[in-house]
């Protein structure tokens, strides 16, 4: 994006793609533009009419194309290994909307816990096409629309013959999911490409070279990239970032180094470059705070936490070139009214957390356990106290020494897998580290909690009986 002496210059000098009018009717534009001046009608009247026509069309299509998925045996039961019987009665099918390409959604199912849900979706080509030749199959976009605020992660798998694509979505919410609506919208099947290259160039090499005014080039011929800048950000900038980046940044203010680079090759749209910094003494990557490269843009900017500049000689630059190739362009949709969740057990409590917060509520379903913590609001708290309080609560939530005791005396250790926080509360989810109950599909393993067998829960040494 070029920005010159006027904000509108970017628009005035806009680069017009050859396909800018794809799907756009020039005839309709002209028709509308002329009709409203010739007949002295308002555009609103015209628009209402055309919108009504469109809405009717959409309604007709929806009636004709929405098919309710129904089968006697759930997809999870046939594909996942493990104790599927434990959640069989909790599996709910989603309504699948028919799509336009040959790749069709063949199943969409969910299991809903208290604040979490598992969604499994499968797609197959009508003509039996295999996607087995692609290494990193995925989707360009996956969106879950819901009337409850949610977070989600997903994995995309394939059957061995590459003919069935299995999408597993792990959903967590900030409140109870049951009774809400959910819509899964998947866009374009793609193959993700990623080329990583350890460059042999350290940050010290870069610093020395730039100090002498010599640009330093990294990467092989196809991905040749010039490092154009290296600087430490001011403490003020870093403090400012700490409020916005993530909880992890709070209380971890160190020195942040910013690297700028530019690719010497043409970067096609939907392709991008990335830099990582590897500590050669441990082989571990240095924490990246922010940064990136605009897709289709040759410019790269990355910020990383470098605590000590004497480490520069031990930090090597890794260059990544990544992008996507479109395999099937389409939109697949599935809808669900979440009116049937599994039973949940809840426990109200009042466990103090070092004078800065209180654990108020615990909810447990087969899919996970979540705790609700309120922080104690103190007037006139200064920034340092606020950071310390946040740290105490965070430490408690990450390492709460949380475990479940079953009726047979067996203990199940729990580990945190998600957390969301507001100004005076935190909602944190935990799952069993291991469990005798669970299902697996390739590398995706989900451990269940035997809810009916729970005798008590231990929170930081305190036992609460159910």
């Amino acid at each position, binding site marked *: 994006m070029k920005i010159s002496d006027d*904000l509108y210059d970017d628009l005035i000098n806009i680069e017009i793609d050859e396909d800018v009018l794809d799907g756009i009717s020039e005839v309709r*534009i002209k028709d*509308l533009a002329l009709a409203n*001046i010739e007949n002295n009608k308002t555009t609103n009247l015209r628009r209402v009419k055309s919108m009504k026509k469109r809405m009717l069309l959409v309604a007709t299509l929806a009636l004709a194309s929405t098919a309710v998925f129904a089968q006697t045996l759930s997809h999870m039961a046939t594909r996942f290994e493990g104790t599927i019987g434990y959640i069989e009665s909790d599996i709910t099918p989603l309504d699948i909307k028919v799509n336009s390409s040959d790749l069709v959604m063949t199943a969409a199912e969910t299991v809903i816990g208290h604040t979490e849900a598992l969604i499994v979706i499968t797609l197959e080509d009508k003509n039996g096409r295999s996607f087995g030749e692609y290494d990193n199959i995925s989707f360009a*976009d996956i969106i879950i629309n819901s009337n409850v605020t949610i977070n989600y992660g997903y994995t995309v798998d394939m059957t061995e013959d590459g003919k069935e694509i299995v999408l597993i979505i792990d959903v967590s919410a900030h409140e109870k999911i049951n009774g809400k609506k959910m819509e899964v919208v998947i866009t374009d099947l793609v193959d993700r490409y990623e080329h990583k290259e350890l460059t042999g160039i350290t940050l010290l090499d870069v610093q020395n070279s730039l100090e002498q005014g010599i640009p330093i080039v990294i990467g092989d011929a196809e991905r040749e990239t010039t490092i154009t800048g290296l600087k430490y950000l001011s403490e003020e900038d870093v403090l*400012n970032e700490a409020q*916005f980046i993530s909880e992890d940044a709070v209380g971890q203010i160190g020195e942040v180094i910013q690297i*700028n680079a530019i690719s010497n090759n043409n970067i096609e749209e939907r392709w991008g470059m990335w830099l990582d910094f590897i500590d050669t003494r441990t082989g571990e990557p240095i924490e990246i705070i922010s940064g990136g490269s*605009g897709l289709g843009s040759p410019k790269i900017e990355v910020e990383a936490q470098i605590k000590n500049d004497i480490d520069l000689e031990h930090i090597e630059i890794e260059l990544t070139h990544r992008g996507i190739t479109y395999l099937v362009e389409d939109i697949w949709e599935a809808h669900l009214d979440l009116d049937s969740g599994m039973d949940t057990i809840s426990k109200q409590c009042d466990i103090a957390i070092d004078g800065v917060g209180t654990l108020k509520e615990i909810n447990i379903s087969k899919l996970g356990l979540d705790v609700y913590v309120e922080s104690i609001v103190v007037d006139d708290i200064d920034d340092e106290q606020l950071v310390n309080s946040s740290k105490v609560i965070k430490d408690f939530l990450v390492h709460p020494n949380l475990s479940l005791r079953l009726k047979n005396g067996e203990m199940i250790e729990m580990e945190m897998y998600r957390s969301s926080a507001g100004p005076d509360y935190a909602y944190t989810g935990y799952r069993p580290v291991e469990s005798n109950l669970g299902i697996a599909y390739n590398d995706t393993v989900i451990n269940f909690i035997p809810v009916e067998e729970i005798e008590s829960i231990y929170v930081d040494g305190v036992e609460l009986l159910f």
Partner: protein
Amino acid sequence: MDDKSILLNMAKGDVASYEVLIDKYTRYVVAIIKRIAINNLSNQDIEEITADVFIKLWENREKLIADSLKKYMAIIARNLTLNRLRKVNKLCELDEEESIDLDTPEKELIQKEMQTILLNAILSFSEIDKEIFIRRFFYMQKITDIAECIGIPENTVHTKIARGKKKLEKLLLQRGEII
């Protein structure tokens, strides 16, 4: 036919010249709408907004100046697109302190002096920061859309906006301006 002749004829009520203008600038207007809306509007919406841009030009045909025609179209297209996005709830919700006046193009031109001051400040940002700032505050795009377009995590967009705002605040305070 050049823009000057088109506008001269349109001012006399010549619909044929108006059609020439539509043919000449449809691609330009659609490109602007698409740039601002990303994928948040249907093709039908884009067609209707494009038509409305031309209707606005027809309604103001006696006042148009050839030299600023493209800019006038850009302003109208941007404002109509933002209005439509607002109607379909695809526009980002800004904090009160971030809000931007979406009034008439004329009013925006009056605000040019302030705009120039802000623009000079934005020009001191890095390329990525500039793009994020313009997308957020000029195109009113959502953080998720900006992250998707630029190919960086949402948290990074938040960070860069926060940092950019801080820088702007500092620069304007140094100049004795108030945001």
